[in-house]
């Protein structure tokens, strides 16, 4: 009896130790990456680096064109993916009648989420760059990225819409509102924090994407003047700087900018989430 008890006791201790350790290793890995990059990159990040054009393929100068291109890619992809994604989510949660079509849509959305970015890149290259004749451009890159973030927006919106209590809808319907009025005036506002979070996280995905962007938007270092111009995003720039050994200093600096950007994006997402949910509770 005594022996059994002590086994249980030690098992509990060891298990807790393992759980704590796994968390510490995870956090440790994160901190190791962030600290190393910031430590070597922060000193090279200044106003000139952000606002100057690169010289000698990025060996000298700044990253201004890549910032502009990244912003364009974000705007184009989200302008396409956000409305479609939210509407698809409404269809799947509020209007769904069970049936083969819904099953197919769900399977397609899940499939899209699982397709590797390089496949999106190949597809964007074959379909948009060559077949549609958009060549390497912001448009090809933005469309490809829109397809990539679509499932994220659909899923987060779906989750947000599903978490709206049924009683909200019933109350609205009971007051004589139509289905769409209920969705537009009651369900969507309540689901907004979740939806916005999904969109903001998609920005992060667009910023970080490299493989698909290289194959569809190209890697031109010029500032794009129209959506038909080729462009190089910050992530692509970092990849090229590091892999072609152009400048480790500039690579660290670019990585630092990327990390800070993601940090800001995540903070905004968290803040909106918190603010909205406290508003909802009030």
């Amino acid at each position, binding site marked *: 009896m005594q022996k059994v008890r002590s086994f249980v006791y030690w098992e509990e201790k060891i298990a807790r130790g393992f*759980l704590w350790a796994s968390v510490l290793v995870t956090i440790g890995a994160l901190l190791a990456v962030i600290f190393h990059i910031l430590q070597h990159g922060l000193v090279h990040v200044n106003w000139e680096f952000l606002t100057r054009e690169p010289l000698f393929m990025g060996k000298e100068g700044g990253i201004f064109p890549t910032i502009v291109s990244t912003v364009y890619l974000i705007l184009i992809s989200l302008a396409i993916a956000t409305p479609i994604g939210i509407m*698809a989510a409404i269809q799947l949660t509020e209007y769904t009648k069970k049936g083969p079509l819904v099953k*197919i849509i769900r399977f397609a959305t899940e499939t899209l989420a699982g397709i590797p970015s390089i*496949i999106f890149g*190949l597809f964007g290259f074959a379909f948009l760059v060559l077949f549609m004749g958009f060549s390497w451009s912001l448009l090809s890159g933005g469309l490809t990225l829109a397809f990539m973030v*679509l499932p994220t927006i659909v899923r987060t919106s779906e989750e947000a819409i599903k978490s709206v209590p049924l009683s909200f809808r019933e109350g609205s319907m009971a007051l004589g509102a139509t289905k769409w009025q209920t969705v537009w005036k009651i369900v969507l506002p309540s689901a907004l924090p979740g939806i916005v979070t999904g969109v903001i996280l998609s920005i992060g995905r667009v910023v970080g994407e490299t*493989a698909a962007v*290289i194959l569809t938007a190209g890697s031109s270092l010029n500032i794009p003047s129209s959506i038909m111009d080729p462009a190089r995003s910050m992530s692509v720039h*970092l*990849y090229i700087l590091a892999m072609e050994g152009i400048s480790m200093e500039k690579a660290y600096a670019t990585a630092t900018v990327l990390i800070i950007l993601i940090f800001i994006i995540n903070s905004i997402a968290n803040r909106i989430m918190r603010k909205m949910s406290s508003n909802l509770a009030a």
Partner: protein
Amino acid sequence: MRKIHETIIEKLLLFSAVVAVLVVALITYFIFADGFPVMQKYGIAHFITGSDWHPLDKQFGLLPMIAGSFLVTLGALIIGVPLSVGCAIFLAEIAPKQVTRIIRPAIELLAGIPSVVYGFYGLVILVPLIRELFGGRGFSILGGSVVLAIMILPTVVNISEDAIRAVPKEYKEGSLALGATHWQTIKKVIVPSARSGILTAIVLGMGRAIGETMAVIMVVGNVATLPESILDPIRTLTGNIAIEMGYAAGEHAQALFATGIVLFVIIMILNFMVTLVPKRIGE
């Protein structure tokens, strides 16, 4: 009037939902249309079982890349899954509120950091570290596995945690009421009840690892030969496409689309496996 308004909106919603289906269909069509003819010409077996990749000499063996993708993914799962599931259990069951408030944003940040940044870190830190500790060139399966393990962490943690939190409270209360300790309850009641969710998380993490491109390219060395140890360099299917697509033409380019087909089929099999996972208990 109101009726028409509603009908138009319903049509729009349905169309939006169908966009995903259209995109998947287009992707499938374009990848296969560009890659399948060359596979047929030289035989599917030549692609899948051939171990020589010399595209300019019409040698399109993808076996080294298939092996590379699977090995590096296996390594990532061996390192990443225990960590991730441990984190998920910790967050759902053990963590005090203040600790959760720190860890959750940290994991979100981990998920948000661009893959190319992980690749860069791997290139400047892990590769030299492996070279020093174990010898070899440093560009290796091991390096790729470590980088990928970090990258799949957020996916596996989040989905597993959701699954664990979805286990009805009564299960836990019942188990504790019967005198089980907290860990016994986690091990015998909570995790088994959440196993389908955890399994889904692992399969999705696996998909993410196989599909990852840039981070892997930067640390595995990209040598298209069959590896003999975990310290050998390899090339993955994704890397094969990304590295050579820039300058490939003719059948070489088609062979890269064929590489895409192989990758696509692997991912589809994984997706299909997710749908096979039985629904969780209590549903």
